[in-house]
């Protein structure tokens, strides 16, 4: 395995502050880590939420989905969230990933509140620190696999910077695609891929921006158990090798128990916390 090329992060400092102040080492100067050496092993970055409440309103009817969720993940942790359908797992993930805003409560990252940032800052933070994986893959149908994988960087960079660095970007993308085992499918459209391949592509896309936290919403939900296992193995190795923080939603017990810790949601509250093997 070759040393991953460090991809320069966006120069804008504001979004990073949310993360960087708590840690002594600024992200930009992150050195090219040697293989096997996890990227952020020494950093105790934490993502968490306090007394999170979220409800949907349907006319006069208020549907509470989250009713006071406290959760914390430390850096390098592999957390799985399970619970019945409709218990609010996806909603929790969205709120943690800043895709949705909570009604009450706070989302913290490295001790800083991030849910009340302005929208452009939240967009930037999401681009740089979170990688999303969805149950139905959510690849862009018009783009090829390679273009899908580099999309987060395309969003991050201005056209000019993109062009000046497209070589490094493509190199890195090929590397990641190789790592998820799709090297022979680079030019294919999502419609020409199988479900497992699409999910691997989605994982590659989530990884290319060097996120701190991977948020996976039932990544194996649409796959058969063998393919699901392959995806799980990939996630587990990412967690182990790169010390990537992973929060994974699933209602499959066998999948859930492969994580370090299992959080069970019921009726919008954290019911039990299992320390997995």
């Amino acid at each position, binding site marked *: 395995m070759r040393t991953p090329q460090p991809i320069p992060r966006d120069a804008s400092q504001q979004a990073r502050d949310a993360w960087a102040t708590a840690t002594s080492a600024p992200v930009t100067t992150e050195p090219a880590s040697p293989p096997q050496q996890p990227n952020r092993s020494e950093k105790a970055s934490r993502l968490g939420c306090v007394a999170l409440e979220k409800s949907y309103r349907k006319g006069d009817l208020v549907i509470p989905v989250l009713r006071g969720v406290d959760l914390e993940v430390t850096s390098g942790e592999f957390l799985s969230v399970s619970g019945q359908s409709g218990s609010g797992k996806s909603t929790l993930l969205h709120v943690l990933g800043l895709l949705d805003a909570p009604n009450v409560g706070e989302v913290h990252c490295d001790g800083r509140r991030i849910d009340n940032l302005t929208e452009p800052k939240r*967009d*930037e933070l999401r*681009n740089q620190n979170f990688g999303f994986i*969805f149950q139905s893959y*959510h690849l862009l149908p018009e*783009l090829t696999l390679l273009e899908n994988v580099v999309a987060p960087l*395309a*969003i991050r960079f201005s056209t000019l910077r993109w062009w000046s660095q497209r070589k490094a970007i493509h190199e890195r993308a090929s590397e990641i695609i190789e790592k998820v085992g799709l090297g022979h499918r680079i030019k294919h459209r999502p419609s020409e891929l199988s479900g497992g391949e699409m999910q691997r592509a989605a994982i590659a*896309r989530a990884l290319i*921006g060097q996120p701190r936290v991977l948020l996976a919403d039932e990544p194996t939900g649409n796959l058969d158990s063998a393919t699901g296992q392959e995806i799980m193995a990939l996630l587990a190795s990412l967690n182990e090798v790169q010390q990537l923080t992973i929060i994974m939603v699933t209602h499959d017990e066998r999948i859930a128990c492969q994580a370090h810790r299992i959080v069970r949601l019921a009726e919008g509250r954290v019911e039990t916390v299992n320390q997995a093997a």
Partner: protein
Amino acid sequence: MYKLQLCLRYLRTRWIAMASIVSVMLGVATMIVVNSVMAGFATEMRERIHGILADIVVETHTLDGDPDAAARMQEIQEVAGNYVEAMTATVEVYGMISFKYRGQVITRPVTLIGIDPETKGAVSPLVTNLTSFTSGRRMGLALEDDANIGCRVAGVLSGSSADTGGIHAGDRITGCNGTAVQDTRELASRLKNAVDQKAIELDIIRDGQPLTLELPVPRPTWNLTADAREHRRAIIELERRRLEWNQPQDIVPAGGTQAAPQPTPPDLNTPPGSQPSPLTPPPSFETIPPPARDFSTPGTPAPLGSDVADLSDPLPARVYLGAGLIEFPIEDKKTGEIRIERMVLSGEDVRITTVSAGRPPEPRHFTATVVDVFKSGMSEYDSNLVFCNLEELQQTRGMIDPSTGDRAVTSIQVKLKNFEDAETVVERLRAAFPAHIYSVRTWQQKQGPLLAAVELETGILNILLFLIITVAGFGILAIFYMIVVEKTRDIGILKALGASRRGIMSIFLGYGLALGVVGSGVGVLLGLVFVHYINQIEDGITWMLGRKVFDETIYYFPEIPTAVNPLTVGWVALGAIAIAVLASILPARRAAKLHPVQALRYE
């Protein structure tokens, strides 16, 4: 970066968007074509008006005119001499013209303009508006349509400019001033629009060999062409013989040789055997001798029945009649073809009534010989103007001071070396000439309302056509809305990947911009190509429908005139792009406002 990429990708994969491109394209193309044709017509019309009116006109308010024209022209020369290229004095007055047509007397109101052809021709194109020139007669050419190619030279008058220019009978004329001509009508249009007023170039084919000959443009005169003379001779002879029949005792044939009393009344339709038919060119055209006398100094009357002067001598008063006064189209009952009927032919006499100068104005009558027919292509002029020799008009109206011999004129037309100086010259002349006696105007100011009407027409047409593009804009709006709905999930994905609202919005705005640019770009191209080949297209449609779409006998244009104004094209293209972008604002805003979670949940 992703904005551009997705934008282009959507453009390539959404074929429905092509529908809106096509509508933008058609709108833009239509606007360019219509504007170019309108501008072409307007330019042509302005040229025609300009051709008749001269750059600047100094007029007296009164019909009595300025008593001393020479002094006034001297003054203009002093005030603005270095701008002036040529000047001519004219008398403009209202009048009536009467002539006999098939037994009835037709009277029409006219504007009588007394001109001196030499100086008037220097101020504005005169000879190219005369049908004797455009039919080739003035150059001594008898032309006829040839079924094969071009028009055939049926005869050449010996000693005429065509003869000295080297044209022979039997030649075929295939081109004029570098453009091909198919028939006599096209040749007439080409000759009329000859830009160079000095010489014309004719492409001919003689014995299968192409040749190019140059002929001098004849100078305008008050002389009759040879066949007009022949026609005149014939009708006078006819008239005289009729008089002889009615009152044989009163007429004493002076010569006694040619007009012996005849026992039977002469047949009105067949003139005496020795004379050629008045209405058709003589078959032996080539053998007609040139005019025996030069009539450059009109004034010697040719008394009827006198043996001293030639029978065909015109009267001292001579006129160019506007074609619209004496022509009307009639449809042939059998063939359905429309031909032009002329009520008066060159060489015949008409009666003119006008008012005298001085108080009170008194009616004055005189008889004048029609020397030529004037056809500018502006119906206002062609159905209203009668050009008359200046001296005769001045004499008839009593505008010549008996004591000093000074001749009065009502207007002085000025041609400038450079029309750009018109404003300065008008200002100077206005300062020099008292405003209560003279009005000084450029031709544009004189024709202000007409030009303004054309401009208004163009403006309204443009607004209407732009509404068509706006309709295309609504099409874009609808299609974009659909695309946004279709792409809802993708928008959610982009948001999850960190795309900002503005980024999402600019994808769709860029999409609209791209549609507008492509649509108006192709539209501009299409429009320009259409304008460029408009006459070929017209030919094609004519061929398909089997009847003329653009009849040059109605419009007087040899082909559809066009003028492409780059500024207009630019504005049309820009307007179309702006509409496309404006139409995409609403869908783009909707896309930007989509809640990421709801967009992701959307299936």
